[in-house]
């Protein structure tokens, strides 16, 4: 186990009204060749209900580990994770969030509708009801007429939309997105970001998006949390002051550029000493 950094002021600085998700002094790492490699060190931040937060950092900075911990897949070495003010263990968090990864992870033997309904079925909803729920949402995700198709018959963008539908349909209060559009080409990616904004806007959910694309992080989120390289700490928090609904044209606005400059500076992209 790694050494736990005792959070000295974070605990007292927690807001009186509990935020939806509070992460306090989170430290995690893994063992390799008998050595403990720290991935996250004393990470502290919180996310409000209905807030859209982007987490950005250099690759290998432990962003995926962070989401795995929030989802309940991994137990951190130390630190607290509170949901609605309640301390939670990893196993208690399983089933609380809807997780979407870079790989669409569609089950090849299930049709589009069956894949989309997966989380509902796991949640105990009868198959028929779950599939009917998925069916009526196909239009909304640009999948009209593809309900009975198998994943291998779809394009990359469509597969990712099925994964997005599965994630949204799960009906969880927290949505975790781990570079969901990382494997897509630039044009499909932009379209998918628009889809995401529209769908999340419709349903007002709390979202944490992990990305290494600065523009994506700003364009989509209310707040961008910048992590340092491994082991990751919070380097900077950028509150995004752009009205919603967001439009592509905003990307060229002065305010957007200012945010972009701030985030890139926090990532150390402007320092001359970079190799």
């Amino acid at each position, binding site marked *: 186990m790694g050494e736990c950094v005792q959070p000295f002021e974070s605990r007292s600085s927690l807001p009186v009204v509990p935020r939806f998700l509070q992460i306090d002094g989170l430290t995690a790492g893994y063992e390799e060749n008998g050595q403990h490699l720290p991935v996250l060190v004393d990470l502290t931040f919180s996310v409000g209900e209905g807030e859209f937060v982007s987490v950005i950092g250099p690759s290998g900075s432990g962003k995926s580990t962070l989401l795995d911990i929030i989802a309940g897949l991994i137990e951190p070495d130390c630190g607290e994770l509170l949901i609605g003010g309640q301390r939670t263990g990893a196993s208690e968090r*399983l089933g609380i*969030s809807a997780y979407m990864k870079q790989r669409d992870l569609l089950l090849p033997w299930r049709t589009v509708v069956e894949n989309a309904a997966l989380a509902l079925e796991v949640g105990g909803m009868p198959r028929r009801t779950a599939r009917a729920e998925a069916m009526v949402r196909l239009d909304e995700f640009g999948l009209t007429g593809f309900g009975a198709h198998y994943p291998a*018959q779809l394009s990359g963008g469509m597969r990712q939309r099925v994964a997005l539908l599965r994630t949204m349909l799960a009906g969880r209060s927290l949505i975790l997105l781990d570079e969901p559009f990382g494997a897509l080409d630039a044009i499909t990616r932009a379209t998918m970001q628009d889809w995401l904004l529209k769908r999340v806007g419709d349903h007002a959910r709390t979202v944490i998006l992990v990305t290494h694309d600065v523009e994506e992080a700003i364009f989509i989120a209310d707040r961008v949390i910048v992590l340092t390289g491994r082991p990751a700490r919070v380097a900077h928090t950028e509150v995004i002051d752009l009205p919603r609904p967001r439009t592509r044209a905003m990307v060229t606005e002065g305010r957007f550029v200012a945010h972009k400059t701030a985030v890139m500076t926090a990532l150390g992209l402007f320092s001359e000493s970079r190799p």
Partner: protein
Amino acid sequence: MTGNLDGGSTRADDWSERAQWLLPALLIVAGLSVWEIWVRVDNTPDWLLPAPSDIAASLINDWQLLLRHTWVTLQEVLLGFAAALITGALLAAALDASPVLKRATYPLIVASQAIPIVALAPLLLVWFGYGLLPKVIVTGLVAFFPIVVTTYDGLRSTDRETLELLRSMGAGRWTRFRLVKVPSALPSLFSGARIGVSVAVIGAVFGEYVGAKAGLGYLMNISSGRLLTDRVFACIVLLALLAIALFGLVSWLESRCLPWRTRLVGGR
């Protein structure tokens, strides 16, 4: 991640599909013709090598006898194979669920394949007599191994990230097994079953050879003793047809059970 909306050129496909049947058929016809001519020109005695026409005659004249014995062998194969399929699949699931069990029994399962059936079959005869049971056991034993190994590998190679996704949805072990592991291991199970059903036929015939009152193996044994070589060949033809039919049956079941695969390979 393999999209395949792009269908290949259809003319080449049509031709190769036809050639798939045409070439082996031509080869068989050519082979049989050479055989027939050779035997007639050389005047080879029947008991040494019967002509294909003699074998066909035996198939037609003795059809009732052959049918009765084929039915016995078929029963042995089906029972043995079914037993191998059920125990094999269950054992594979148990091995996958428990690493301890796997470490304890996997070497034994592999070792069981080193036991010569030649040594075991006479013992089974002593223990269980001349009836159906010892043949079913031999058949089951030979068919069991490929099924366990391929199914276990299939369960093991289930995509880890998908399993984690299901876990994040709150799916317990049984749900993950049912919704992800089983369907992703099915293609492997069917591969094992296809090998298993082919060797099951050999197993049944071997069991009958050692000691039986009926079955194609038994019929071959007594026919060769009486120099009825044409009937021996008739039995071989029937065994081959039996193996092909069972192999085809498993393949057909596979295409029925795994529609997502067939639809992608051949489908529109």
